[in-house]
Protein backbone atom coordinates (compact mmCIF):
# COMPACT_ATOMS: atom_id res chain seq x y z
CA UNK A 1 0.00 0.00 0.00
CA UNK A 2 1.31 3.46 -0.87
CA UNK A 3 0.28 5.92 1.81
CA UNK A 4 0.63 9.68 2.14
CA UNK A 5 0.37 11.32 5.58
CA UNK A 6 -0.13 15.08 5.49
CA UNK A 7 1.36 17.32 8.16
CA UNK A 8 1.62 21.05 8.78
CA UNK A 9 4.55 22.96 10.23
CA UNK A 10 3.23 25.59 12.64
CA UNK A 11 4.58 28.17 15.04
CA UNK A 12 4.63 27.35 18.72
CA UNK A 13 2.14 29.83 20.12
CA UNK A 14 3.51 29.43 23.63
CA UNK A 15 6.37 31.77 22.61
CA UNK A 16 3.96 34.38 21.24
CA UNK A 17 4.93 38.03 21.78
CA UNK A 18 1.97 40.37 22.25
CA UNK A 19 2.39 44.14 21.81
CA UNK A 20 0.36 46.64 23.88
CA UNK A 21 -1.99 47.18 20.92
CA UNK A 22 -2.56 43.39 20.95
CA UNK A 23 -0.82 42.76 17.62
CA UNK A 24 1.30 39.63 17.77
CA UNK A 25 4.72 38.61 16.50
CA UNK A 26 5.04 34.98 15.56
CA UNK A 27 8.53 35.15 14.03
CA UNK A 28 10.23 34.48 17.33
CA UNK A 29 8.11 31.40 17.98
CA UNK A 30 9.70 27.99 17.55
CA UNK A 31 8.45 25.57 14.90
CA UNK A 32 6.65 22.32 15.49
CA UNK A 33 4.60 19.73 13.64
CA UNK A 34 0.90 20.12 14.42
CA UNK A 35 -0.01 17.95 17.41
CA UNK A 36 -2.76 16.05 15.62
CA UNK A 37 -0.76 15.55 12.43
CA UNK A 38 1.42 13.20 14.46
CA UNK A 39 -1.62 10.90 14.73
CA UNK A 40 -1.92 10.90 10.92
CA UNK A 41 1.76 10.03 10.51
CA UNK A 42 1.46 7.29 13.15
CA UNK A 43 -1.63 5.83 11.46
CA UNK A 44 0.23 5.76 8.15
CA UNK A 45 3.33 4.25 9.76
CA UNK A 46 1.31 1.43 11.34
CA UNK A 47 -0.44 0.62 8.05
CA UNK A 48 2.86 0.75 6.13
CA UNK A 49 4.70 -1.37 8.70
CA UNK A 50 4.26 -4.60 6.77
CA UNK A 51 5.66 -3.85 3.36
CA UNK A 52 3.95 -0.56 2.57
CA UNK A 53 5.40 2.82 1.70
CA UNK A 54 4.65 6.00 3.66
CA UNK A 55 5.41 9.48 2.33
CA UNK A 56 5.06 12.38 4.77
CA UNK A 57 3.78 15.35 2.78
CA UNK A 58 3.69 19.00 3.75
CA UNK A 59 3.12 22.32 2.03
CA UNK A 60 4.34 25.63 3.41
CA UNK A 61 6.89 28.44 3.27
CA UNK A 62 10.60 28.32 4.09
CA UNK A 63 9.75 26.98 7.56
CA UNK A 64 9.10 23.51 6.10
CA UNK A 65 12.81 23.24 5.19
CA UNK A 66 13.81 23.25 8.87
CA UNK A 67 16.20 20.30 9.11
CA UNK A 68 15.58 19.42 12.74
CA UNK A 69 11.89 19.29 12.16
CA UNK A 70 12.33 17.15 9.06
CA UNK A 71 14.49 14.73 10.95
CA UNK A 72 11.78 14.46 13.58
CA UNK A 73 9.20 13.52 10.96
CA UNK A 74 11.56 11.13 9.18
CA UNK A 75 12.14 9.27 12.46
CA UNK A 76 8.45 8.35 12.76
CA UNK A 77 8.24 5.28 10.56
CA UNK A 78 8.03 7.08 7.23
CA UNK A 79 9.85 6.10 4.03
CA UNK A 80 10.48 9.66 2.87
CA UNK A 81 9.34 13.26 3.04
CA UNK A 82 8.04 15.54 0.31
CA UNK A 83 7.51 19.27 0.74
CA UNK A 84 5.93 21.82 -1.57
CA UNK A 85 7.63 25.10 -0.73
CA UNK A 86 6.51 28.60 -1.62
CA UNK A 87 6.62 31.74 0.57
CA UNK A 88 2.91 32.35 -0.07
CA UNK A 89 2.00 29.02 1.48
CA UNK A 90 2.93 30.07 5.04
CA UNK A 91 -0.42 31.82 5.35
CA UNK A 92 -2.41 29.58 3.01
CA UNK A 93 -5.98 28.86 4.09
CA UNK A 94 -7.55 25.40 4.00
CA UNK A 95 -8.74 25.79 0.41
CA UNK A 96 -5.32 26.75 -0.97
CA UNK A 97 -3.56 24.13 1.15
CA UNK A 98 -5.90 21.43 -0.14
CA UNK A 99 -5.38 22.56 -3.73
CA UNK A 100 -1.60 22.21 -3.46
CA UNK A 101 -1.75 18.97 -1.46
CA UNK A 102 -4.09 17.42 -4.02
CA UNK A 103 -1.72 18.35 -6.84
CA UNK A 104 1.19 16.86 -4.90
CA UNK A 105 -0.67 13.61 -4.21
CA UNK A 106 -1.45 13.39 -7.92
CA UNK A 107 2.22 13.89 -8.73
CA UNK A 108 3.33 11.24 -6.20
CA UNK A 109 1.35 8.80 -8.34
CA UNK A 110 -0.23 5.50 -7.40
CA UNK A 111 -1.24 6.65 -3.92
CA UNK A 112 -3.72 4.27 -2.25
CA UNK A 113 -4.45 6.22 0.89
CA UNK A 114 -4.08 9.80 2.10
CA UNK A 115 -4.23 10.31 5.87
CA UNK A 116 -4.78 13.72 7.43
CA UNK A 117 -4.90 14.76 11.08
CA UNK A 118 -8.06 15.97 12.71
CA UNK A 119 -7.13 19.63 12.31
CA UNK A 120 -4.06 21.84 12.12
CA UNK A 121 -2.65 23.29 15.33
CA UNK A 122 -2.99 26.87 14.14
CA UNK A 123 -6.19 27.16 12.09
CA UNK A 124 -7.94 23.97 13.18
CA UNK A 125 -10.51 24.44 10.43
CA UNK A 126 -10.80 20.65 9.98
CA UNK A 127 -11.24 21.16 6.27
CA UNK A 128 -8.10 20.07 4.46
CA UNK A 129 -8.82 16.32 4.33
CA UNK A 130 -12.33 16.83 2.96
CA UNK A 131 -11.14 19.30 0.35
CA UNK A 132 -8.19 17.19 -0.79
CA UNK A 133 -10.60 14.29 -1.31
CA UNK A 134 -13.12 16.42 -3.17
CA UNK A 135 -10.42 17.79 -5.46
CA UNK A 136 -9.11 14.31 -6.22
CA UNK A 137 -12.63 12.87 -6.54
CA UNK A 138 -11.85 10.25 -3.88
CA UNK A 139 -14.04 8.77 -1.14
CA UNK A 140 -13.58 10.62 2.15
CA UNK A 141 -14.35 10.12 5.82
CA UNK A 142 -13.47 12.23 8.84
CA UNK A 143 -13.34 11.37 12.55
CA UNK A 144 -11.77 7.95 12.01
CA UNK A 145 -11.14 6.25 15.35
CA UNK A 146 -10.09 2.78 14.13
CA UNK A 147 -8.60 1.40 10.88
CA UNK A 148 -8.35 -2.21 9.75
CA UNK A 149 -7.15 -3.55 6.42
CA UNK A 150 -9.67 -5.80 4.66
CA UNK A 151 -9.62 -7.88 1.48
CA UNK A 152 -10.92 -5.04 -0.68
CA UNK A 153 -9.86 -1.90 1.11
CA UNK A 154 -10.30 -0.72 4.68
CA UNK A 155 -12.88 -1.19 7.39
CA UNK A 156 -12.97 1.86 9.64
CA UNK A 157 -14.77 3.13 12.68
CA UNK A 158 -16.00 6.71 12.62
CA UNK A 159 -16.92 8.36 15.92
CA UNK A 160 -19.44 11.16 15.38
CA UNK A 161 -21.69 13.13 17.71
CA UNK A 162 -23.69 10.42 19.44
CA UNK A 163 -23.06 7.59 16.97
CA UNK A 164 -20.25 5.25 15.94
CA UNK A 165 -20.34 4.06 12.33
CA UNK A 166 -18.50 1.07 10.90
CA UNK A 167 -17.79 1.55 7.21
CA UNK A 168 -16.13 -0.26 4.32
CA UNK A 169 -13.91 2.10 2.33
CA UNK A 170 -12.53 1.13 -1.08
CA UNK A 171 -9.08 2.44 -2.02
CA UNK A 172 -7.85 4.91 -3.07
CA UNK A 173 -9.38 7.11 -0.38
CA UNK A 174 -8.70 10.01 1.99
CA UNK A 175 -9.21 9.75 5.76
CA UNK A 176 -8.96 12.29 8.57
CA UNK A 177 -8.16 10.56 11.85
CA UNK A 178 -8.98 11.50 15.44
CA UNK A 179 -6.34 12.17 18.06
CA UNK A 180 -7.69 9.16 19.97
CA UNK A 181 -6.86 6.73 17.14
CA UNK A 182 -3.32 6.06 18.33
CA UNK A 183 -0.50 7.36 20.49
CA UNK A 184 2.24 8.80 18.27
CA UNK A 185 5.52 6.94 18.82
CA UNK A 186 8.45 8.44 20.64
CA UNK A 187 11.32 7.96 18.16
CA UNK A 188 14.21 5.85 19.46
CA UNK A 189 17.88 6.72 19.00
CA UNK A 190 17.95 4.21 16.13
CA UNK A 191 14.94 5.90 14.46
CA UNK A 192 16.62 9.28 14.73
CA UNK A 193 19.93 8.03 13.32
CA UNK A 194 18.09 6.28 10.48
CA UNK A 195 16.17 9.46 9.64
CA UNK A 196 19.28 11.11 8.20
CA UNK A 197 19.44 8.49 5.44
CA UNK A 198 15.84 8.90 4.30
CA UNK A 199 15.04 10.93 1.19
CA UNK A 200 13.50 14.41 1.39
CA UNK A 201 12.24 16.05 -1.80
CA UNK A 202 11.27 19.68 -2.32
CA UNK A 203 8.91 20.79 -5.03
CA UNK A 204 7.95 24.30 -6.08
CA UNK A 205 4.46 25.27 -7.18
CA UNK A 206 5.85 25.45 -10.72
CA UNK A 207 7.04 21.83 -10.45
CA UNK A 208 3.43 20.88 -9.80
CA UNK A 209 2.03 23.18 -12.44
CA UNK A 210 -0.10 24.90 -9.79
CA UNK A 211 -0.66 28.66 -9.98
CA UNK A 212 -0.18 30.73 -6.84
CA UNK A 213 -3.40 30.13 -4.94
CA UNK A 214 -5.50 33.26 -4.66
CA UNK A 215 -6.78 33.68 -1.09
CA UNK A 216 -10.55 33.24 -1.05
CA UNK A 217 -10.89 35.72 1.79
CA UNK A 218 -8.96 38.90 2.61
CA UNK A 219 -7.48 38.41 6.07
CA UNK A 220 -6.68 41.22 8.50
CA UNK A 221 -3.85 41.21 11.05
CA UNK A 222 -3.63 38.53 13.72
CA UNK A 223 -4.23 39.89 17.21
CA UNK A 224 -4.27 38.52 20.70
CA UNK A 225 -7.77 38.49 22.17
CA UNK A 226 -8.59 40.90 24.97
CA UNK A 227 -7.63 39.10 28.12
CA UNK A 228 -9.18 39.53 31.48
CA UNK A 229 -6.95 40.42 34.39
CA UNK A 230 -7.46 38.12 37.33
CA UNK A 231 -6.47 38.59 40.95
CA UNK A 232 -3.66 36.05 40.76
CA UNK A 233 -3.27 35.36 44.49
CA UNK A 234 -1.01 32.31 44.39
CA UNK A 235 0.00 30.68 47.68
CA UNK A 236 2.84 28.29 48.44
CA UNK A 237 1.99 25.00 50.16
CA UNK A 238 3.11 26.44 53.52
CA UNK A 239 0.30 29.00 53.30
CA UNK A 240 -2.39 26.50 52.46
CA UNK A 241 -4.57 27.72 55.31
CA UNK A 242 -4.95 31.11 53.61
CA UNK A 243 -5.67 29.34 50.33
CA UNK A 244 -8.40 27.18 51.86
CA UNK A 245 -10.00 30.15 53.61
CA UNK A 246 -10.14 32.11 50.36
CA UNK A 247 -11.47 29.11 48.44
CA UNK A 248 -14.20 28.48 51.01
CA UNK A 249 -15.28 32.08 50.66
CA UNK A 250 -15.44 31.73 46.89
CA UNK A 251 -17.61 28.64 46.94
CA UNK A 252 -19.71 29.97 49.77
CA UNK A 253 -18.70 27.44 52.43
CA UNK A 254 -18.05 28.70 55.91
CA UNK A 255 -14.74 27.96 57.54
CA UNK A 256 -14.67 24.67 59.35
Amino acid at each position, binding site marked *: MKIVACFKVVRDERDLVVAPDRTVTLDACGLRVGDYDLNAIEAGAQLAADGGELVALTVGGEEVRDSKLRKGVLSRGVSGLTAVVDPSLTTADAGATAEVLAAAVGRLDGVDLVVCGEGSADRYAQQVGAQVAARLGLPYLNEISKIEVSADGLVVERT*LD*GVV*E*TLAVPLPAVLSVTSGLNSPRIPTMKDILGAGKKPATDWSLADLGVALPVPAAAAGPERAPESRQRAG*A*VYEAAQQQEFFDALRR*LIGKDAK
Partner: protein
Amino acid sequence: MKAKRAVVYGESVGGYAELCAGASALAEEVIAMVVGSADQASAVAELGVAVRLLEISEDVWLDDCWPALIEEITALQPELVLLRAGKRVRALAGRLSVATGVPVASDVASLAEAEAGFEFGLVRYGGATEQASVAPSVIAIVGPGLFAPAAPVGGGSVTTIDAAVASGPIRLLSRAPLAEESVDLGVAEVVVGVGRGIGSVENVARAAELARKLGGELACSRPIAEGLGWLPKNRYLGVSGAVISPKVYLALGISGQVQHLVGVNGSKAIVAINKDKNAPIFGHCDLGLVADLEAMLPELLDKLA
Protein backbone atom coordinates in the same frame (compact mmCIF):
# COMPACT_ATOMS: atom_id res chain seq x y z
CA MET B 1 -25.48 45.70 1.81
CA LYS B 2 -27.67 42.84 2.88
CA ALA B 3 -27.05 39.63 0.96
CA LYS B 4 -29.79 38.27 -1.25
CA ARG B 5 -29.90 34.68 -0.23
CA ALA B 6 -28.75 32.47 2.63
CA VAL B 7 -29.02 28.72 2.92
CA VAL B 8 -28.92 27.02 6.32
CA TYR B 9 -28.42 23.37 7.20
CA GLY B 10 -28.15 21.48 10.47
CA GLU B 11 -28.05 17.77 11.14
CA SER B 12 -30.79 17.93 13.76
CA VAL B 13 -33.87 20.14 14.08
CA GLY B 14 -32.57 21.75 17.28
CA GLY B 15 -29.91 23.83 15.57
CA TYR B 16 -32.12 25.63 13.07
CA ALA B 17 -33.61 28.29 15.35
CA GLU B 18 -30.22 29.95 15.85
CA LEU B 19 -29.13 29.50 12.23
CA CYS B 20 -32.35 30.98 10.86
CA ALA B 21 -32.12 33.98 13.17
CA GLY B 22 -28.55 34.65 12.06
CA ALA B 23 -29.38 34.13 8.39
CA SER B 24 -32.42 36.44 8.40
CA ALA B 25 -30.32 39.21 9.90
CA LEU B 26 -27.77 38.83 7.11
CA ALA B 27 -29.84 37.97 4.02
CA GLU B 28 -33.15 38.92 2.45
CA GLU B 29 -34.21 35.36 1.71
CA VAL B 30 -33.53 32.33 3.93
CA ILE B 31 -33.84 28.78 2.68
CA ALA B 32 -33.47 25.90 5.12
CA MET B 33 -32.30 22.53 3.81
CA VAL B 34 -33.59 19.57 5.78
CA VAL B 35 -32.43 16.02 5.16
CA GLY B 36 -34.75 13.65 6.96
CA SER B 37 -38.49 13.29 7.50
CA ALA B 38 -41.53 15.44 6.67
CA ASP B 39 -42.05 15.93 10.41
CA GLN B 40 -38.60 17.40 10.81
CA ALA B 41 -39.21 19.67 7.83
CA SER B 42 -42.47 21.04 9.28
CA ALA B 43 -40.79 21.61 12.62
CA VAL B 44 -38.19 23.77 10.90
CA ALA B 45 -40.86 25.53 8.78
CA GLU B 46 -42.43 26.68 12.06
CA LEU B 47 -39.55 29.16 12.22
CA GLY B 48 -41.14 30.97 9.29
CA VAL B 49 -38.65 29.94 6.64
CA ALA B 50 -38.88 28.20 3.29
CA VAL B 51 -37.78 24.59 3.79
CA ARG B 52 -36.48 22.31 1.06
CA LEU B 53 -36.75 18.74 2.18
CA LEU B 54 -34.65 15.86 0.95
CA GLU B 55 -36.83 13.10 2.31
CA ILE B 56 -35.02 9.94 3.34
CA SER B 57 -35.83 6.92 5.47
CA GLU B 58 -33.91 6.31 8.65
CA ASP B 59 -31.77 3.53 7.20
CA VAL B 60 -30.18 5.83 4.63
CA TRP B 61 -26.61 6.86 5.46
CA LEU B 62 -26.60 10.65 5.69
CA ASP B 63 -23.31 11.06 3.82
CA ASP B 64 -24.91 9.43 0.77
CA CYS B 65 -27.18 12.48 0.60
CA TRP B 66 -24.37 15.00 0.16
CA PRO B 67 -24.25 14.94 -3.68
CA ALA B 68 -27.98 15.73 -3.93
CA LEU B 69 -27.79 18.35 -1.19
CA ILE B 70 -24.73 20.02 -2.72
CA GLU B 71 -26.38 20.12 -6.14
CA GLU B 72 -29.44 21.81 -4.65
CA ILE B 73 -27.41 24.38 -2.70
CA THR B 74 -25.13 25.12 -5.66
CA ALA B 75 -28.10 25.78 -7.94
CA LEU B 76 -29.47 28.35 -5.46
CA GLN B 77 -26.20 30.33 -5.60
CA PRO B 78 -26.49 31.66 -2.07
CA GLU B 79 -23.98 34.27 -0.92
CA LEU B 80 -24.11 32.80 2.56
CA VAL B 81 -24.33 29.22 3.78
CA LEU B 82 -24.66 28.61 7.51
CA LEU B 83 -23.97 25.10 8.74
CA ARG B 84 -24.59 24.06 12.33
CA ALA B 85 -21.30 22.81 13.78
CA GLY B 86 -21.09 19.04 13.97
CA LYS B 87 -18.55 16.41 13.05
CA ARG B 88 -20.40 15.10 10.00
CA VAL B 89 -21.15 18.61 8.76
CA ARG B 90 -17.43 19.43 8.50
CA ALA B 91 -17.03 16.80 5.78
CA LEU B 92 -20.03 18.24 3.93
CA ALA B 93 -18.60 21.77 4.19
CA GLY B 94 -15.32 20.78 2.52
CA ARG B 95 -17.07 19.09 -0.34
CA LEU B 96 -19.45 22.01 -0.82
CA SER B 97 -16.51 24.43 -0.79
CA VAL B 98 -14.72 22.61 -3.60
CA ALA B 99 -17.96 22.34 -5.60
CA THR B 100 -18.74 26.06 -5.30
CA GLY B 101 -15.33 27.69 -4.87
CA VAL B 102 -16.63 29.45 -1.77
CA PRO B 103 -14.32 29.36 1.29
CA VAL B 104 -15.26 27.68 4.56
CA ALA B 105 -15.03 29.66 7.79
CA SER B 106 -14.91 27.09 10.58
CA ASP B 107 -16.37 27.92 13.99
CA VAL B 108 -16.73 31.62 13.38
CA ALA B 109 -16.37 33.80 16.47
CA SER B 110 -18.34 36.55 14.75
CA LEU B 111 -20.15 37.03 11.47
CA ALA B 112 -21.49 40.30 10.07
CA GLU B 113 -22.27 41.92 6.77
CA ALA B 114 -19.48 43.95 5.23
CA GLU B 115 -19.32 46.34 2.33
CA ALA B 116 -18.12 43.57 0.05
CA GLY B 117 -19.82 40.50 1.45
CA PHE B 118 -19.21 39.24 4.96
CA GLU B 119 -16.72 39.82 7.71
CA PHE B 120 -16.02 36.88 9.98
CA GLY B 121 -13.73 36.38 12.95
CA LEU B 122 -11.70 33.22 13.38
CA VAL B 123 -9.50 32.12 16.23
CA ARG B 124 -6.02 30.75 15.64
CA TYR B 125 -3.89 28.49 17.80
CA GLY B 126 -6.92 27.50 19.82
CA GLY B 127 -7.55 31.05 20.95
CA ALA B 128 -4.06 32.55 21.30
CA THR B 129 -4.80 34.90 18.41
CA GLU B 130 -7.79 36.02 16.39
CA GLN B 131 -8.14 37.31 12.87
CA ALA B 132 -10.92 38.98 10.92
CA SER B 133 -11.43 38.16 7.24
CA VAL B 134 -13.68 39.49 4.51
CA ALA B 135 -15.09 37.46 1.61
CA PRO B 136 -17.88 38.13 -0.90
CA SER B 137 -19.39 34.76 -0.12
CA VAL B 138 -18.80 32.27 2.67
CA ILE B 139 -19.75 28.87 4.04
CA ALA B 140 -19.73 29.44 7.79
CA ILE B 141 -19.72 26.63 10.35
CA VAL B 142 -21.56 28.03 13.33
CA GLY B 143 -21.45 26.69 16.87
CA PRO B 144 -24.19 27.13 19.45
CA GLY B 145 -24.61 30.56 21.01
CA LEU B 146 -23.39 32.81 18.17
CA PHE B 147 -26.97 33.83 17.34
CA ALA B 148 -29.94 34.07 19.67
CA PRO B 149 -32.55 31.53 18.55
CA ALA B 150 -35.49 32.72 16.41
CA ALA B 151 -38.93 32.22 17.92
CA PRO B 152 -41.31 29.93 16.02
CA VAL B 153 -43.61 32.33 14.17
CA GLY B 154 -45.19 29.88 11.73
CA GLY B 155 -45.91 30.69 8.12
CA GLY B 156 -43.02 28.80 6.60
CA SER B 157 -43.32 26.40 3.71
CA VAL B 158 -42.01 22.98 2.77
CA THR B 159 -41.13 21.90 -0.75
CA THR B 160 -39.64 18.54 -1.56
CA ILE B 161 -36.33 18.16 -3.36
CA ASP B 162 -36.79 15.80 -6.27
CA ALA B 163 -33.51 13.93 -6.27
CA ALA B 164 -32.48 10.32 -6.02
CA VAL B 165 -30.12 9.33 -3.24
CA ALA B 166 -27.75 6.60 -4.41
CA SER B 167 -25.09 4.82 -2.38
CA GLY B 168 -21.55 5.92 -3.07
CA PRO B 169 -18.31 3.93 -2.96
CA ILE B 170 -18.28 3.83 0.86
CA ARG B 171 -20.63 1.29 2.46
CA LEU B 172 -22.14 1.65 5.91
CA LEU B 173 -21.76 -1.74 7.60
CA SER B 174 -23.30 -0.90 10.96
CA ARG B 175 -23.89 1.90 13.41
CA ALA B 176 -24.25 2.02 17.15
CA PRO B 177 -25.32 4.84 19.41
CA LEU B 178 -22.36 6.27 21.28
CA ALA B 179 -22.94 5.25 24.87
CA GLU B 180 -22.10 8.47 26.69
CA GLU B 181 -24.10 9.71 29.64
CA SER B 182 -25.35 13.17 28.82
CA VAL B 183 -23.99 15.97 30.96
CA ASP B 184 -24.67 19.68 31.01
CA LEU B 185 -21.54 21.29 32.38
CA GLY B 186 -23.00 24.69 31.55
CA VAL B 187 -25.47 24.78 34.45
CA ALA B 188 -23.09 23.84 37.29
CA GLU B 189 -22.06 26.65 39.65
CA VAL B 190 -18.87 24.89 40.63
CA VAL B 191 -16.82 22.87 38.13
CA VAL B 192 -13.80 20.81 39.14
CA GLY B 193 -11.48 20.27 36.17
CA VAL B 194 -8.75 17.64 36.21
CA GLY B 195 -5.67 17.63 34.00
CA ARG B 196 -2.78 15.26 33.46
CA GLY B 197 -1.37 16.31 36.81
CA ILE B 198 -4.21 14.46 38.58
CA GLY B 199 -1.96 11.44 38.14
CA SER B 200 -4.28 8.42 38.40
CA VAL B 201 -7.78 7.08 37.89
CA GLU B 202 -8.08 6.82 41.68
CA ASN B 203 -7.42 10.53 41.98
CA VAL B 204 -9.99 11.26 39.27
CA ALA B 205 -12.50 9.41 41.44
CA ARG B 206 -11.46 11.58 44.40
CA ALA B 207 -11.93 14.71 42.31
CA ALA B 208 -15.39 13.40 41.31
CA GLU B 209 -16.24 12.99 44.97
CA LEU B 210 -15.07 16.54 45.64
CA ALA B 211 -17.21 17.87 42.79
CA ARG B 212 -20.22 15.96 44.11
CA LYS B 213 -19.73 17.26 47.63
CA LEU B 214 -19.53 20.81 46.32
CA GLY B 215 -22.73 20.27 44.37
CA GLY B 216 -20.84 20.74 41.13
CA GLU B 217 -19.68 18.81 38.09
CA LEU B 218 -16.45 17.10 37.15
CA ALA B 219 -14.72 18.16 33.92
CA CYS B 220 -11.22 17.74 32.48
CA SER B 221 -8.60 18.77 29.95
CA ARG B 222 -8.60 17.16 26.53
CA PRO B 223 -5.75 14.68 27.14
CA ILE B 224 -7.68 13.18 30.07
CA ALA B 225 -10.62 12.40 27.79
CA GLU B 226 -8.89 11.77 24.51
CA GLY B 227 -5.47 10.28 25.18
CA LEU B 228 -5.90 8.70 28.60
CA GLY B 229 -9.62 8.03 28.31
CA TRP B 230 -10.17 8.52 32.05
CA LEU B 231 -13.32 10.56 31.49
CA PRO B 232 -15.83 10.70 28.61
CA LYS B 233 -15.21 13.18 25.79
CA ASN B 234 -18.23 15.30 26.62
CA ARG B 235 -16.50 16.33 29.85
CA TYR B 236 -13.47 18.06 28.40
CA LEU B 237 -13.30 21.82 28.29
CA GLY B 238 -11.71 24.08 25.73
CA VAL B 239 -11.66 25.27 22.17
CA SER B 240 -12.64 21.87 20.81
CA GLY B 241 -14.66 20.86 23.88
CA ALA B 242 -17.26 22.42 26.17
CA VAL B 243 -17.27 26.10 27.13
CA ILE B 244 -18.44 26.99 30.63
CA SER B 245 -18.88 30.03 32.83
CA PRO B 246 -19.45 28.79 36.38
CA LYS B 247 -19.09 30.75 39.59
CA VAL B 248 -15.94 28.83 40.44
CA TYR B 249 -13.70 26.73 38.21
CA LEU B 250 -11.23 24.64 40.20
CA ALA B 251 -8.38 23.44 37.96
CA LEU B 252 -6.48 20.49 39.41
CA GLY B 253 -3.22 19.57 37.67
CA ILE B 254 -3.99 21.56 34.54
CA SER B 255 -1.10 23.45 32.94
CA GLY B 256 -3.31 26.18 31.48
CA GLN B 257 -2.64 26.10 27.74
CA VAL B 258 -4.71 28.58 25.78
CA GLN B 259 -6.68 25.79 24.07
CA HIS B 260 -8.02 24.78 27.48
CA LEU B 261 -8.41 28.27 28.93
CA VAL B 262 -10.76 29.52 26.22
CA GLY B 263 -13.26 26.99 27.56
CA VAL B 264 -13.17 28.42 31.10
CA ASN B 265 -12.30 32.09 30.64
CA GLY B 266 -15.91 33.05 31.32
CA SER B 267 -15.71 31.67 34.87
CA LYS B 268 -16.33 34.18 37.60
CA ALA B 269 -13.33 32.84 39.51
CA ILE B 270 -10.59 30.48 38.41
CA VAL B 271 -8.79 28.59 41.15
CA ALA B 272 -5.75 26.44 40.37
CA ILE B 273 -3.69 23.83 42.14
CA ASN B 274 -0.49 22.80 40.37
CA LYS B 275 2.86 21.60 41.66
CA ASP B 276 4.79 23.77 39.20
CA LYS B 277 4.84 27.38 40.33
CA ASN B 278 5.68 28.42 36.74
CA ALA B 279 2.63 26.70 35.23
CA PRO B 280 0.83 29.11 32.86
CA ILE B 281 -2.44 28.59 34.74
CA PHE B 282 -1.10 30.71 37.61
CA GLY B 283 -1.00 33.68 35.27
CA HIS B 284 -4.71 33.29 34.57
CA CYS B 285 -6.22 32.50 37.95
CA ASP B 286 -7.79 34.42 40.79
CA LEU B 287 -6.54 32.07 43.44
CA GLY B 288 -3.80 29.48 43.29
CA LEU B 289 -1.92 26.96 45.38
CA VAL B 290 1.47 25.51 44.50
CA ALA B 291 1.15 21.97 45.78
CA ASP B 292 1.37 18.30 44.88
CA LEU B 293 -2.13 16.94 44.39
CA GLU B 294 -1.13 13.50 45.60
CA ALA B 295 -0.93 14.98 49.09
CA MET B 296 -3.43 17.80 48.64
CA LEU B 297 -6.48 15.89 47.35
CA PRO B 298 -7.35 14.27 50.71
CA GLU B 299 -6.90 17.69 52.35
CA LEU B 300 -9.23 19.27 49.81
CA LEU B 301 -11.90 16.66 50.46
CA ASP B 302 -11.52 17.11 54.18
CA LYS B 303 -11.46 20.91 54.24
CA LEU B 304 -14.11 21.65 51.63
CA ALA B 305 -16.68 18.93 51.92
